[in-house]
């Protein structure tokens, strides 16, 4: 059969985000896939070298549009580790709660993208609505709906407002109450199984040799989670589990996402019970005249897509010397995606890409 070249994205119904894949197809089977990022490259890491330490917070948020909060955390902890700043215990708890809330919001968005792509419009609309409830909570806490700029060096910007904890619990209960509906409509639906089981399969060895983390790895049975292996914020203060699955296909990855969301909600309840009283930030020097001691650091955390790392170098000045983010979508969207697409049908390209949880701005930066 004749081989054809097919451009999948950046303007394609099955594509989420500004990303394209150049496919070589034979019939409707993919023979070779070339991931093609660059539609969104803003050179943030270079721009950050020209702005003072504190002014970079609005920039790091925009690297991952869907979940900006773990970016804030990575940058704030890197600055803290270079400058030797401690974070009060209450702020550690608030950070964990805030990050788990962000994870729920991000997973709901991912669920919208995935179920929408498969044609499950009802579940997709529910997920978008529930994400909006999470955004309302963020708006009340931080003033922003999408980009929050809430975590900063030394703690968080402000304490929970009056009555926030009650509204947080209520909202999470009302979202959690819909889990049986989601299951009936989507997760236990035979059509979802038929479309996703065995699709985009990656073995454990393949995932590990290509730098996979997050759902891509946990769906192959490896309980690898930075929150467990190198705990930060308050993740070592309460008990929680790392959900895994064994098959390594799109079906398993989306189920890991579902289980993770539920685990996050339970974790928020546990953290709220244990939360101590006290300050929420330690004073930092005047941010406009702030010079960070010379040095380099590497920090990592678990974003909703996998392991997020940041290599930060200071030359002792008032601006970073070099910033480099290790974003989880980078290996997932370039190395693993190119491998996972080979041999699959054209109709499953979007399925595999979204189940790998690739978000294009993270790759381009």
């Amino acid at each position, binding site marked *: 059969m004749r081989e054809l070249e097919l451009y999948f994205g950046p303007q394609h119904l099955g594509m989420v985000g500004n990303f394209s894949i150049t496919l070589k197809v034979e019939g409707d089977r993919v023979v070779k896939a070339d991931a093609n990022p660059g539609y969104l*490259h803003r050179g943030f890491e270079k721009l950050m070298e020209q702005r003072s330490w504190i002014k970079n917070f609005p920039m790091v948020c925009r690297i991952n549009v869907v979940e900006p909060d773990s970016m804030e955390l990575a940058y704030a902890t890197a600055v803290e580790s270079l400058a030797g700043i401690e974070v009060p215990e209450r702020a550690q708890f608030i950070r964990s709660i805030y990050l788990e809330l962000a994870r729920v919001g991000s997973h709901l968005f991912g669920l919208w993208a995935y179920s929408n792509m498969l044609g499950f419009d009802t579940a997709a609309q529910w997920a978008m609505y529930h994400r909006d409830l999470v955004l309302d909570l963020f708006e009340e806490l931080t003033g922003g709906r999408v980009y929050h700029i809430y975590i900063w060096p030394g703690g968080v910007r402000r304490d929970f407002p009056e009555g926030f904890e009650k509204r947080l619990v209520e909202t999470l209960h009302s979202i959690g109450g819909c889990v049986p509906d989601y299951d009936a409509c989507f997760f236990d639906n035979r059509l979802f199984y038929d479309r996703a089981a065995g699709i985009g399969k990656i073995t454990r060895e393949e995932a590990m*040799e290509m730098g996979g983390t997050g759902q891509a790895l946990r769906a192959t049975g490896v309980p690898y989670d930075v929150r467990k292996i190198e705990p930060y914020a308050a993740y070592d203060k309460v008990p929680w589990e790392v959900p895994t699955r064994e098959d390594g296909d799109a079906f398993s990855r989306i189920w890991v996402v579902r289980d993770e969301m539920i685990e996050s909600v339970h974790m928020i309840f546990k953290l709220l019970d244990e939360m101590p009283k006290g300050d929420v930030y330690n004073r930092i020097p005047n941010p406009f005249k702030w010079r960070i001691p010379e040095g380099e650091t590497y920090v990592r955390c678990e974003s909703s897509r996998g392991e997020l790392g940041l290599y930060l170098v200071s030359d002792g000045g008032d601006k970073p*010397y070099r910033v*480099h983010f*290790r974003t989880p979508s980078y290996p997932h969207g*370039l*190395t693993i995606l190119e491998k996972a697409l080979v041999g699959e049908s054209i109709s499953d390209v979007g399925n595999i890409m979204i189940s790998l949880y690739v978000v294009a701005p993270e790759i381009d930066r």
Partner: protein
Amino acid sequence: MDRALIDSLSSTFDALRVEVPREDRLTVQAPRDAVMSVLSFLKGRGYDHLHMVSCVDWMEEGQFELVYVLSAYGTGQDSASNPGEEIILKTRIPRELPTVVSSISLFKNAEPYEREIHELFGVRFEGHPRLTPLFLERDYEIPPFRKDFDTRQYVEDFFGSIPPVGEEDQDV
């Protein structure tokens, strides 16, 4: 950090500078020729997860610094490597004609990182199968992430040379 690992690193390789800045962190400074053998040594010891390859431009010293961040997945039989520890391997190469051997044969996910560093810093990776552009659409005289590339000047020169809409009409 495992003491035995540090000892065997310094006894296997000469000219390594090994530091322990934190309990769970190891920084290794290696000469360019030793990078591949150190990476393969560490991979054999269970450090099988390459986080990233990065590059820092130390313009005043006339050098690029390549940075490899490694840790362990912790799934192997050998439990000596703890997944909570990271190893940062650094090597300095001259800014004039910078070349280094590609590490794809050891870590497949090094491919896009090396491609990016080639594009943004102009470092050549020997043995890399596709050093084609990844992000950028135009050609640059100086690779744009080098310190002597002035972003603001470039924006002024490049976009400033495009006449504003309607200017031709005003001249008439």
